[in-house]
């Protein structure tokens, strides 16, 4: 802007001059432009008048933050040597005490915001009790006082160690060794409790492991400090302050500690926290995620700590996601299934008993906890056991959500049991009524099996070695069709179930075949349940849809919907669930055929049913809203799409205080990383809608498109992912054709098409995307990850298109990359012209 440049030039030149000469200069420079003259005069006045204007918001602009204490300073009779730690609560120094004895100590200066006199007074009150503690696993607290700047400080035995959790992971301690260390911590806590001291702030950073003569010795530090520094918890604000200052994280806080009014904390609060620590040592996670607790706000956090049942450690492990589970198990030197089976049972119960909301149900002492762990280690029965049959039943229901590895084990057991009871019985042709009885039993078992298998994430399944499962499935399928001929309904049920497992493994053709058999059996059997028929139709339609056989899928889906609508059943909610499901399924199928209006209508109908049953706040409602929002977007009804999405998010309990596009986008990423794909999807959809509104198109819309598409792709929803990747790619090809991520998008689109089994269309996209990235690999931030992903995609492609040598060759390339480690710079193998020729072979 030339005008602006000239303003600057004249203004700056004028400022250089003594103030007496400015006016003349400005007049001359403005030469006959009175507007300009006026403007410059105004700016020069502003420069004088506004000298104090724009004082930086920082109190001491440009100054470093004042350091209150520093090494070399003296606090009382202690000389600070070096800072050795810093936490939410304060700064810890190594210090030297000179009298009465010369020794090195740890000196902790508490951060601002405390009433120092009260802190010191509270400490003095407990001093005698603290002095009585004498235990090898407890760091002694020697002294407390106030610094010259008025902050409280504590002097403790100097412990040079690492956090217990870090120690266990760095040393890759096996589960039993972790328990041994944990036992020592229990002993320390028990000792303190006997002396009348409650820690109140046990957490990994307060339990340090030192190594003495090759022996790992955990030391609990900070005894007595939480008590001295807590006290006035009257308002929300001080509680939050307390969290940040003294807890650092609410993840280790007992339900009674989270209460505002509660001053009644006893030793069982420490038992709870020991349970949290044990949970973390076993699973690598705390029962509740600290940042989620804080994010949810104070009320919600209290509610969670007070009411929400934590997942069992073994359940938590099996829902971690393959990669994280493998890492967690690896840190204990185990394969994932082994870790899960080790933790399941006794250790689950022990941990849950510590974590009981009602402290009367917890272990009453740290010793009781210790005893149970020792019993577990010596294979004796533990005292922590389910409370009642009902309790156990509820837990069993939850166990349905077991992960894949556990699922296989349970399933094998079930099939074996089934084989022995039903098949042998059928062979022996026992009395007819016995067979009926067994038939009922078998179908129950089949249902149980099916429910359980629903918990298997196909993604998890695909990442694992499924040879065993495939073999088992194949043999089961044969036996079902050969041995169960006189029990067609049981056969149908099992075939349906097996078909669904095949579908989960991505073998849709076999799944389709199984579903067709099941359907034929159910149609032919007069005594069959129409509800089962509807299920069969639904499953068959699903498998067909998965293969892109849309018109056939539509035909069965419509029949399924009819069957469901005409269903007469006295099981509450059953009909509604089937109808809602069938409506949504048909919607998805017609949406993929491009019949958007009809799809929208179907989704809305499904939504209406689901809002009645299971109800407004059910996740199923959110899911349908998400789907609805997807089709609305495709129809260009962006406003309605956004509303649908907001409603979906509301169901998930998001607040809209700060739901701007970017916050939502970030939230989506977090959820995606945690494997919560449906919620991530809702966030991305909403973020996308808001960004479209904000900027129409451009990088932020592209990123949102791509993230949403990836979320859908991870759910195998390739048909929905495809148009999003296409839009993203088109936009990037226009805006930034040379960026590596434009090529990456092309590769991802190819991968999506592979999901739809459009291999011919996918291959050129994969190759050109890959080559494009290879040329620009130096600009890729996470290049190993991207490369591995690309190579895996090629291997899948070659396998799916029956080119085993190619697949092997690229598997070799993949191992080479993986062997070179995540930190090295991987070499991107060239996609040679030979490979290209191979692509055109039949």
């Amino acid at each position, binding site marked *: *802007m030339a005008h*602006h440049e000239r303003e*600057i030039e004249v*203004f*700056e030149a004028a*400022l250089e001059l003594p103030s007496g000469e400015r006016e003349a200069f400005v007049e001359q420079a403005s030469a006959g432009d009175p507007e300009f003259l006026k403007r410059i005069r*105004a*700016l*020069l006045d*502003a*420069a004088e*008048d*506004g000298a104090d*204007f*724009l004082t*930086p*918001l*920082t*109190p001491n*602009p*440009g100054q470093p*933050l004042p350091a209150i204490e520093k090494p070399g300073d003296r606090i009382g009779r202690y000389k600070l040597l070096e800072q050795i730690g810093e936490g*939410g609560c304060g700064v810890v120094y190594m210090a030297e005490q000179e009298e009465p004895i010369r020794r090195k100590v740890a000196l902790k200066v508490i*951060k*601002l*915001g405390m009433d120092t006199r009260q802190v010191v007074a509270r400490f003095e009150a407990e001093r005698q009790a603290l002095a009585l503690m004498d235990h090898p696993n407890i760091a002694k607290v020697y002294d407390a006082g106030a610094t010259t700047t008025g902050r409280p400080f504590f002097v403790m035995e100097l412990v040079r160690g690492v956090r217990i959790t870090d120690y266990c992971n760095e040393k890759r301690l096996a589960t039993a060794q972790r328990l041994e260390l944990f036992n020592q911590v229990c002993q320390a806590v028990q000792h303190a409790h006997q002396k009348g001291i409650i820690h109140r702030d046990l957490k990994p950073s307060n339990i340090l492991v030192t190594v003495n003569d090759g022996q790992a010795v955990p030391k609990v530090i900070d005894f007595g400090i939480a008590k001295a520094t807590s006290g006035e918890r009257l*308002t*929300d*604000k001080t509680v*939050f*302050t307390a*969290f*940040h*200052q003294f807890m650092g994280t609410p993840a280790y806080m007992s339900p009674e500690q989270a209460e505002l009014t509660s001053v009644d904390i006893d030793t069982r609060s420490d038992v709870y926290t020991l349970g949290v620590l044990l949970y973390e040592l076993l699973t690598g996670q705390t029962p509740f995620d600290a940042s989620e607790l804080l994010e949810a706000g104070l009320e919600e956090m209290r509610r969670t700590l007070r009411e929400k049942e934590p997942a069992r450690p073994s359940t938590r492990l099996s829902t971690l996601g393959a990669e994280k589970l493998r890492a967690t198990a690896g840190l204990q030197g185990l394969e994932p299934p082994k870790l899960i089976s080790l933790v399941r049972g006794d250790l689950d119960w022990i941990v849950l008993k510590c974590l009981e909301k009602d402290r009367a149900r917890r272990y009453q002492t740290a010793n009781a906890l210790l005893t149970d762990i020792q019993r577990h280690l010596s294979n004796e029965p533990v005292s922590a056991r389910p409370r009642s049959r009902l309790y156990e039943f509820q837990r069993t229901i939850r166990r349905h959500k077991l992960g894949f590895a556990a699922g296989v084990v349970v399933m094998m057991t079930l099939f074996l049991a089934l084989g022995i009871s039903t098949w042998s019985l059928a062979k022996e042709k026992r009395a007819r009524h016995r067979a009926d009885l067994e038939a009922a039993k078998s179908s129950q078992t089949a249902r149980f099996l099916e429910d359980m298998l629903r918990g298997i994430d196909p993604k998890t399944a695909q990442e694992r070695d499924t040879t065993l499962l495939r073999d088992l499935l194949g043999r089961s399928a044969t036996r079902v069709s050969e041995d169960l001929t006189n029990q067609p309904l049981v056969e149908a049920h099992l075939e349906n179930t097996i078909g669904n497992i095949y579908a989960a493994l991505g073998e849709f053709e076999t799944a389709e075949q199984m579903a067709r058999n099941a359907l034929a059996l159910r149609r032919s059997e007069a005594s069959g349940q129409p509800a089962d028929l509807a299920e069969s139709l639904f499953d068959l339609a699903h498998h067909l849809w998965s293969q892109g056989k849309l018109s056939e899928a539509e035909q069965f889906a419509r029949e399924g919907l009819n069957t469901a609508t005409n269903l007469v059943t006295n099981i509450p909610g059953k009909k509604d669930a089937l109808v809602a499901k069938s409506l949504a399924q048909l919607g998805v199928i017609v949406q993929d055929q491009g019949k958007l209006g009809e799809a929208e209508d179907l989704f809305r109908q499904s939504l209406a049913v689901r809002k009645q049953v299971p109800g407004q706040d059910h996740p199923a409602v959110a899911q349908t809203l998400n789907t609805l929002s997807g089709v609305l977007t495709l129809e260009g009804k962006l406003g309605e799409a956004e509303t649908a999405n907001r409603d979906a998010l509301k169901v998930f309990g998001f607040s809209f*205080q*700060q739901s701007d596009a*970017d*916050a939502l*986008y*970030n939230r989506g*990423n977090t959820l*995606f*990383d945690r494997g919560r794909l449906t919620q991530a999807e809702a966030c991305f959809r909403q973020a996308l809608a808001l960004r479209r509104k904000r900027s129409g198109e451009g*990088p*932020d819309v592209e*990123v949102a498109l*791509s*993230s949403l598409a*990836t979320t859908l792709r991870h759910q195998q929803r390739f048909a929905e992912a495809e148009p999003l990747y296409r839009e993203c790619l088109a936009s990037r090809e226009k805006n930034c054709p040379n*960026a*590596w*991520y434009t090529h*990456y998008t092309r590769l991802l689109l190819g991968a999506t098409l592979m999901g739809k089994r459009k291999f011919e269309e996918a291959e050129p996209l994969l190759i050109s995307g890959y080559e494009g990235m290879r040329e620009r690999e130096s600009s*890729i*931030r*996470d*290049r190993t*990850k*991207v490369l591995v992903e690309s190579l895996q995609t090629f291997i899948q492609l070659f396998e799916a298109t029956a080119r085993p040598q190619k697949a092997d060759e690229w598997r070799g390339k993949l191992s080479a990359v993986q062997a070179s480690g995540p930190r090295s710079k991987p070499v991107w193998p060239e996609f040679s012209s030979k490979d290209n020729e191979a692509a055109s072979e039949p």
Partner: protein
Amino acid sequence: MDPENIQSTEELLPLVYAELRRLAAHKMASENPGQTLQPTALVHEAWLKLGGGEGRQWRNRNHFFAAAAEAMRRILTDNARRKLRVRHGGGQQRVELEDATTAANSEADDILGISEALEKFAKIDPQRAELVKLRYFVGLSFAEAAEVLGISEPTAKRYWSFARAWLYEEIKAR
């Protein structure tokens, strides 16, 4: 998730924004009420938290500061706006984390006015506007801001004089 996420300053913004908000909330909760926020310290901490030390996601430190300055401007502006809304709307005073970043009451109007004027100025003179963001919203010294912008310190001071006069004039004229 996607490694492609972090590309331009604009895309970095949400990341820095979220981290700064979190830090700000954390800071204010653990210090005396009424104490003013120290944006410089916040931004430095965000830099460390976001892996700045290893230079992972950032093309360089300056790249980060550009995003941080804009994030800080948005945070302070949002909070000033919220504060004014509470004051004028007579709404209930709620203790929320968001309040943590609110500057002293009297500053709220200033911050809003400056922020708006600055947006206008940024369209005409992006580099000088950037300097103002770094100085005013992040609290960098001339030397630091000059380094971030890749200019000399005397140049930064000259830029500053004009920018300050321009903004003062702009706000006065409203």
